[in-house]
């Protein structure tokens, strides 16, 4: 059935004046490039105006060495060599032309090419994001459906209340509570880091388990904090669908309650769910800045946090532009998925 829908959409789209789906995507991508231009311009301006200056810190250190040049001279020299003596707009276009050529520069804080640092740290962020997304889906959707089908029952109240608790808990607070209980009191996990103290002595399996052990609390934090909103979203949509006339028609046909809920109703609830989840897929690469920082997990979030506090302009610019690209890609994916799962929607 689902595959059939996709085929029909593409076919219908083809009939409507050439390859309209492809045209649509091209149009959206061009649009996204415009948005990206203004987003990066804003980010660059903001970063240049930030008080955390890498150059000043560096000059301070160099000037405090015995027999060194005075601080002012160091600042002037470093500004010139890092290209910070130019006005903001000129600096931005320098950055933009490098960026457009695929040259992301070297990270000041980590003294390696930005792209190399990115490759090192993206893996663990992706693993964390993917696992917590899967857990989120597995927990939120069934519970949301149950809450909706048994509206105002005890199960519904319990699920809704715990969802609300999950939504209301700030990440930093919840992560700290988890650490207090499971690391400090129980001693099951380390409070932070990716690897344990004797990581080097472990065999391959041991290394894997050690890393997995260190990821338990961060993933738990990510999942619990974000599962609530998806659960409520599922419940709301399911309730809306269950009150629709076509559900009554399905019951009037003599279908069993299970078939009514899991075939007729769920297929309709899936439309908003698929689009929201599809749209969040690029977000798997964006890392979790707060959680990674709290647990000192060397992922993209923690790394860019370090870069930002140090005033590392190349890395920060790269990370924030990357996030902007991911957001735009997410929007595009969710719009396309809408047309795929909902036969009423045509892209044009």
């Amino acid at each position, binding site marked *: 059935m689902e595959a059939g829908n996709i085929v029909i959409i593409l076919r219908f789209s083809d009939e409507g004046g050439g390859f309209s789906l492809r045209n649509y995507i091209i149009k959206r991508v061009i649009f996204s490039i415009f948005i990206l231009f203004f987003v990066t311009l804003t980010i660059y301006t903001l970063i240049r105006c930030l008080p955390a200056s890498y150059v000043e810190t560096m000059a301070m250190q160099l000037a405090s060495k015995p027999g060194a040049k005075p601080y002012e001279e160091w600042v002037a020299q470093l500004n010139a060599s890092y290209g910070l003596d130019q006005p903001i707009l000129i600096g931005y276009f320098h950055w933009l032309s490098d960026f457009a050529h695929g040259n992301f520069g070297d990270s000041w804080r980590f003294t390696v090419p930005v792209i190399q640092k990115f490759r090192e740290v993206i893996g663990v962020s992706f693993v964390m994001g993917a696992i917590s997304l899967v857990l989120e889906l597995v927990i939120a959707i069934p519970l949301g459906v149950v809450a909706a089908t048994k509206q105002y029952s005890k199960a519904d109240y319990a699920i809704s209340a715990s969802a609300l608790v999950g939504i209301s808990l700030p990440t930093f607070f919840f992560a700290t509570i988890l650490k207090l209980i499971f690391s400090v009191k129980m001693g099951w996990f380390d409070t932070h880091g990716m690897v344990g103290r004797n990581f080097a002595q472990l065999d391959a399996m041991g290394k894997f388990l050690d890393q997995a052990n260190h990821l338990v609390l961060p993933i738990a934090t990510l999942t619990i904090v974000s599962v609530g909103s998806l659960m409520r979203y599922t419940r709301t949509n399911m309730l809306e669908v269950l009150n629709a006339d*076509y559900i009554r028609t399905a019951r009037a046909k003599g279908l069993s309650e299970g078939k009514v809920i899991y075939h007729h109703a769920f297929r309709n609830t899936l439309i908003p769910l698929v689009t929201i989840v599809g749209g969040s897929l690029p977000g798997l690469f964006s890392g979790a800045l707060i959680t990674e920082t709290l647990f000192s997990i060397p992922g993209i979030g923690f790394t860019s946090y370090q870069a930002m506090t140090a005033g590392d302009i190349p890395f920060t610019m790269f990370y924030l532009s990357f996030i902007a690209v991911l957001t735009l890609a997410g929007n595009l994916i969710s719009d396309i998925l809408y047309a795929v799962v909902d036969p009423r929607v045509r892209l044009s």
Partner: protein
Amino acid sequence: MAKRKAEGYLSGKEARRISRENRKITNELEKKRKRKKVPESEYLTKMHDPNNAVEFDNLHTYFFTDAGTVKSVDGVSYEVPIGKTVGVVGESGCGKSVTSLSLMQLLQRPQGQIVEGEIRLNLGDKAVDVAKMPYEAVQHLRGNFVSMIFQEPMTSLNPVFRIGDQINEVIELHDGEGKSREDMKKRTIELLEMVGIANSEGVYQMFPHELSGGMRQRVCIAMALACNPRVIIADEPTTALDVTIQAQVLDLLRSLKDKINSSIMFITHDLGVIAEMADYVVVMYAGRIVEKGTAEDIFYHPAHPYTIGLMASKPVVGRQVDKLYSIPGKVPNPVNMPDYCYFKDRCEMCVEKCGGEYPCEVSISPTHKVSCYRYYEIKNQEGGDVS
């Protein structure tokens, strides 16, 4: 109740007490309905007249709302003879639809419950009492023995499934044994043609949003006919359609009426439609039947003041009036109904006796029954029976 400050005002305490009591009642009823593997003997019954397809007998369907118990259907009895069409008329909210939904057990759960009475359904070789049936058993009746055409064709079809699949589903569910997909498709196309869809092969592949309201209603009718049900409930099937399409759909229903051997329960506000379609007419008001009889009885000799008012408020072709007649006042609040004729406050023919308890049914001819004090004399003179 003493603390009630104004009509319809409930204190928080009162509302909580009501909803607690409601939950107690509905939980118990739901539990009974949800039982699995109930022996058939529990709901088997006998038709009082084997020529009837459905017999509603003293049906009470209540809604346990937070504002109080709404007696949507309060002691309704009427019969639907095999192969005949019964029209049910009345204002909005008088219990027409709830009566039919009770027959399908499609009431809004858990608030809506059948609390008393019998709905005897003739299945041919046996008869069942739908009011006593658990959900599990009712499923096998829906779509198979009783089917329903709903009011809103625009929203009654599932937007994400194809028309063909939606009709196939019913056939597969009840008649699917030994049928291949091809057979089912053949039957579905045949049904689509029967309801006057010309491009039946094309429509089979379409999604509901690709069809107009009239076309969708035809599809709904095809779906209702799919398994040759014994009873078809048409719940205001033309209300949501524009006038020309209304006429087409009515023509279709009338022609189908002669082709198929089902009984039809036709629910509508529209007396003109009833006059064309129905063999028998039931007039309902505030959850009770005020008058019932053959179409001729009701249209040529309306007896109850409410029926007379309805007739008078119908526009007549060729007669010019400045203002259409309307019955004064409105339907009373369904919570806490008084124990006198519900129509008393709006009635222009009120007599002294009307202050008494709710009038019982009086037969003014073998087929024609009315609940009104004005006809008690006839009863007394002729010694007619009071049921």
